[in-house]
């Protein structure tokens, strides 16, 4: 199969999924509504109780600290749409139709993961606006901020491929949602997303330091200029080099799960 067809077919599949975002706005509303609630809850309910250090007025500092964490959690949850969407397509016979066409087989998954990046971009826009309303500010240059958003999207994109594999593996979309919730919820909480790492018990702290969710959050925080002045510097290597560490994870996940998910796509023909 020629390379242009691989790309063109993926674009056709992605377009189909993006039309769905447009036709079912509920999906976007619900994926953004819960993070908006998180922003408000953490900013106004817990904000006063959690001390992130620094000399600023505490709750303002916490809001700045919080946003990058919420962003990271949200784009990771956003990538679960990949799995649920694919599982639904399998169930409804859409995948069978794709399989009976002389299209590039890889296009089904690459089109899907690409359209979920579009979805995550829309979600990030809504969340950024909410953040600005509660007092979050970007204190760095345009390019640094763009790099922060880019890193969030790249990391979420790699998670999408894990979800694509799960989506081809499980029998129904509901299973994807439940299974991913069980794994992703703790991963995004045992991290520096909502609380400073120093407040965690030692064992959890070590886990959290090496958790890529922490590094992507740390990287975004640094690139947005949201580290409160006077915060003690991190000691663990991943958090000293959060951009590099996050990229290593992303590349590793992609290197493993792109082939694995595509193999599963081809294999599930014989279900």
């Amino acid at each position, binding site marked *: *199969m020629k390379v242009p*067809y691989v790309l*063109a*077919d993926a674009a*056709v599949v992605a*377009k*189909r999924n993006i*039309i*769905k975002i447009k*036709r*079912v706005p509920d999906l976007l509303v619900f994926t953004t509504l819960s993070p908006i609630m998180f922003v408000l809850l953490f900013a106004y309910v817990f904000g006063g109780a959690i001390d992130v250090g620094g000399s600023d007025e505490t709750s303002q500092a916490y809001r700045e600290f919080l946003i990058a964490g919420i962003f990271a959690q949200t784009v990771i949850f956003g990538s679960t749409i990949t799995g649920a969407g694919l599982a639904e397509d399998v169930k*409804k*016979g*859409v995948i*069978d*139709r*794709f*399989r*009976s*066409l*002389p*299209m590039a087989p890889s*296009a089904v998954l690459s089109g899907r993961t690409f359209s979920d990046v579009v979805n995550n971009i829309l979600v990030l826009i809504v969340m950024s606006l909410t953040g600005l309303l509660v007092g979050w500010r970007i204190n760095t240059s345009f390019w640094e901020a763009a790099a922060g958003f880019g890193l969030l999207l790249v990391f979420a994109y790699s998670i999408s491929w894990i979800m694509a594999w799960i989506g081809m593996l499980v029998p129904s979309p509901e299973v994807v949602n439940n299974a991913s919730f069980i794994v992703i919820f703790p991963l995004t909480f045992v991290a520096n997303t909502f609380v400073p790492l120093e407040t965690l018990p030692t064992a959890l702290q070590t886990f959290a330091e090496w958790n890529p969710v922490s590094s992507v959050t740390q990287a975004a925080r640094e690139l947005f200029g949201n580290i409160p002045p006077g915060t003690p510097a991190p000691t663990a290597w991943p958090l000293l080099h959060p951009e590099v560490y996050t990229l290593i994870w992303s590349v590793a996940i992609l290197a493993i799960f792109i082939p694995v998910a595509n193999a599963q796509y081809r294999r599930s*023909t*014989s*279900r």
Partner: protein
Amino acid sequence: MTYATSSRRHEAGTAPVIQARGLTKRYGKVVALDGVDLDVHAGTVLGLLGPNGAGKTTIVRILATLLAADEGAATVAGIDVRADPREVRRHIGLSGQYAAVDEYLTGFENLDMIGRLYHLGKAHSRSRARELLAQFDLEDAGDRPTRTYSGGMRRRLDLAGALVAHPPVLFLDEPTTGLDPRGRIQMWDVIRSLVAEGTTLLLTTQYLEEADVLADEIVVIDHGKAIARGTADQLKLQVGGERLEVTIRDRERLADAEELMSRLGTSPQNDLERRTFAVSADLGVATLTAALHAFEGAGIELDDVGLRRPTLDDAFLTLTGRTTEETVAPEDVKGGAER
């Protein structure tokens, strides 16, 4: 199992467009397909007839390259399905048991997408989509999301999707299951016109009537095996020839009628409640004439009399020992094979 040699438009010597030998598929210990052979010649319709879970869908999935057989070989349009599935896909259209249309896309967008994935190009995909919408009486609904469509409209759109690239070989898996009678007849018309244009069609159905109306040749599938094959007429003959059926008017003459009928033919089937008697009519019209004379001579008035040819229902009953309605598939086979 002998091969039926005749098929309306089949010329001797041409290679079959669809050919399968010894197709076998197992799901764990369940044997979904057990050595099925098929031949479908160019421009003809083969009907796979059988109850749920018989293995019909498994056959279609193997031939349409969605599933690999455990044993056996198959070619479609002369191409080995196992060796070169992608080349097979260029020659086939598939419309499955459930309408696999995307409910959030409009009818037009669904067809356009399929055209693009067949690499027809942008302009051609769009014009082909419009053309098919018109052909399938979906023009007005073409720009509405398909979730607003009726079941019949969805099935028509799904079939249209299978035809986007003018495939010479078409697989239709239970194309009318779940449709109301009107939708079914519309679908039959569409299928007949496709075949008239020269498409080679493999069709699965649970409906004997459908196989009778559409198929040149029928293969009866049960428990993963081909248990009978031939034209509808040949299958009916396997069940027995024509039968004489009379309904008398006067309830008091039931005994006389029964005695009279027993002299006209064998294997009686009597329904005293409905005053109806049936026997085999080995001499056809001669038996009918004899019956009319005999009843007139005995002074028994008739409400109805006629020669009845066995239906495919009778054939199915004889072949499988079950009617089509009372068959229940084992769930594990159904779940695995007929999904």
